[in-house]
């Protein structure tokens, strides 16, 4: 058994070396892939949506993407949005507390990423306002204009067109095409 141990050490050493190489290549982001993909979605989605011009106070006002309950997604979005523009506007990633329905009114997009006692308040407080609500079934929230649906390890999106219309949001046909219809 001892002799066997000797032959074993070589592949083990190689594996460790490979592990160290892999480790060195890993970027410094600590957030999970799931959080990164959702943050990227939040950034990309805004280019498929047209808001009524009245929601912006002036031509230089940033597009505010608010995030509730997911500081990790917020951290990635903040990094993603740096020096980026959508339809000529800079992006502001804002993390808001889950019980601040009033703040939600000032957001153009609102991601309610985790179930909390007041999560529905956030949706109702912005009802009929031009806020692109985004919910996450895996996080226990649903009923947003856009919904993250995890299936088989992939994160896809669902779109509730009626809800978008009620909020005076125009969705591009491309978005409607790739998304699954949700809502009732």
């Amino acid at each position: 058994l001892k002799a066997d141990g000797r032959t074993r050490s070589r592949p083990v050493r190689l594996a460790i070396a490979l592990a160290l190489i892999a480790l060195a290549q890993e970027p410094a982001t600590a957030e999970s892939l799931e959080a990164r993909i959702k943050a990227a979605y939040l950034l990309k989605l805004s280019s498929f949506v047209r808001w009524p011009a009245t929601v912006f106070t002036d031509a230089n006002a940033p597009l505010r993407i608010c995030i509730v309950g997911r500081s990790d997604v917020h951290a990635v979005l903040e990094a993603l949005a740096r020096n980026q523009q959508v339809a000529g506007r800079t992006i502001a990633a804002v993390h808001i507390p889950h019980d601040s329905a009033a703040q939600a009114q000032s957001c153009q997009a609102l991601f309610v990423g985790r179930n909390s006692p007041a999560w529905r308040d956030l949706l109702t407080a912005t009802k009929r306002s031009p806020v692109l609500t985004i919910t996450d079934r895996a996080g226990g929230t649903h009923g947003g204009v856009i919904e993250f649906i995890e299936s088989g390890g992939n994160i896809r999106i669902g779109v509730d067109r009626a809800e978008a219309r009620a909020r005076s949001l125009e969705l591009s046909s491309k978005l409607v095409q790739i998304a699954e219809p949700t809502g009732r």
Partner: protein
Amino acid sequence: LSTAVARAAERIAAQAARRVILIAVLIGCSAPAAAQTIDELREMSIDDLAEVNVSSVSKSDEPIGAAPASIYLIGNEAIARSGATTLPEILRLAPNLSTYQRAPGSWVVTARGMNGNLAAQSYSNKLLVLVDGRTVYSPLFSGVYWDLPDVLPEDIDRIEVISGPGATLWGANAMNGVINIITKSAVQSAGAFASAQAGESQRTVGARFGGSIGDNLDYRVFARWIDEEAAWSAPGVRAQDGWRRLGGGFRVDWTPNDRDAVMLQGEAFSGTLGRGGPAEEDTEGRSVTLRWNHRPSTTSELQVQGFYDRVERDSRASGGGKFTADSYDLEFQHSFAAGRRHTVVWGSGVRRTSYRIDGTATFFFDPPIRDLFLAQAFVQDSFAITPKLSFTAGLKVEKDPYVKASLLPEARIAWRANATTLLWASASRAVRSPTPFDRDVEERAGFLSLSGDRQFRTEKLTAFELGLRMQPAPTLSFSLTGYYHQYEDLRSIELLPGPGLNLTWGNMLKGHSYGIEAWGDLRLTSWWKISAGLHLHEQKLSFAPGASGLLDQYQLGNDPSYRIKLHTSLNLAHNLTLDADFRAVGALPGTSVRAYREVGGRLAWTPVRGLTLTVSGANLLHEYHREYEGGDLIPRKVMAGVELRY
């Protein structure tokens, strides 16, 4: 000669397995890694995003839990990626549990030892197991018939495995540990899902459909069939103990407003278990659980839950008996913040179990019909002494069947040294209360008899634990727990006066156990994670003065001194995942069960959206191996599977 050949074959198999792992590592390194950097994410289109497989590696970097206890979480993805098909197999993933397959559908699962001993009629009986708040251990002997509970693995949200006493908060029988199986809410399991797996030794088919009615009512319905072939009693000899189970049910979640949530679920199943001959044992069961959660404010919550559960086992066809047990349970729990520093949880519950046992001439219960009544009330306060230091004290009063009320106190202290380090310690008391098997059982075997002990008392445990949980780097986390358990009044076998060999139970064993539970996760890259687990356990029991001293200290369990687990999860490509696991388990002392090493794994490929093809295996190194004294030879398992999602 044959052992030499077997050894050579084993060596070759082990070598091949090592190579496969190495190749997997090499492939993994050269595979296109999933999107990681900010720049790469920016480049991706919205279609690209939908193609990234996030099941992995990624979600498992669980945050450092605040709970000052030895808790291990088995998440949904870990379950899916493991290739495990039944609940006990899934529980193999927890490093703080020991699992032994005895036969198809027949398992022993323990935390911190006491795995039982068939020859001494001692069945592992010190765990509380819950499925969505419903207890599934048998009130007849406090152990679990693992062929009865089942859930669709896809619909499990998480399994919380707590080793050590958890009696105060969790409920009766949480002596050496708690297994809390929580399924997804209906909202989280929307859509259609179907899966099938088939191999020489096992086949499963499962399906679920989830949808919603109106704005705030979600539901799912599911069904599952498992067919496990008989294992081997000796090389080349089938044990005639195959297992089949068909079950199905529903879950409805209703959230009428922001403060209330109502859940209703129901389930029914029927199964058969081979008994070594042509005749089989039939099992049947059904249950309904209703739960109401009310959150009047962000700092308080009320939960009221009731369940009904019926279980039936009928082995009359194979010369055995039949029993039915109907349980009714009602409990509530209220948590609230008292001032800025206190969080109080209190609650109470009652359970009534009515059973009927149609025994045989050689194995029966006296009386055969009985009602068991259990009532409990508890209060627990968590006090933040400073922002970093918190103290939790709890007390439970439990009125168990047969005996007077027991007091179960618990104290825990937690020091959060910094955002990523938690140091904790605890002292607690737990009991296993008498069951019909301890009090009323009657067995006859020629000149030998065993009668339940009408004076049988509760078995008592005082436990001390010390734990450390750390996340020294974003990609590395680990947990380390040391424990010392002091047992009193454990069940022993005593002699009754008179001619012949007439035995009864007694409470004449005592002793202690100690050990270390350790596990950790290292995320090497965003597409590669490795985890390891270790459990070291020592147990010393001795007889109290005046005991008969029959059988030895192993009658309550032949527990291995070590158990090691290694797991690697790789995302080889955006639609291809590979998992491999290795376990090494020490010999069971006092038995013929030797130490063994085994590997398993799963390869999953998703060629198109909604379709996943899998190949999975378990116990791959040997054609068969034995895990438990008196148990079967457990064969290698290889399965091919398909999963459909819509």
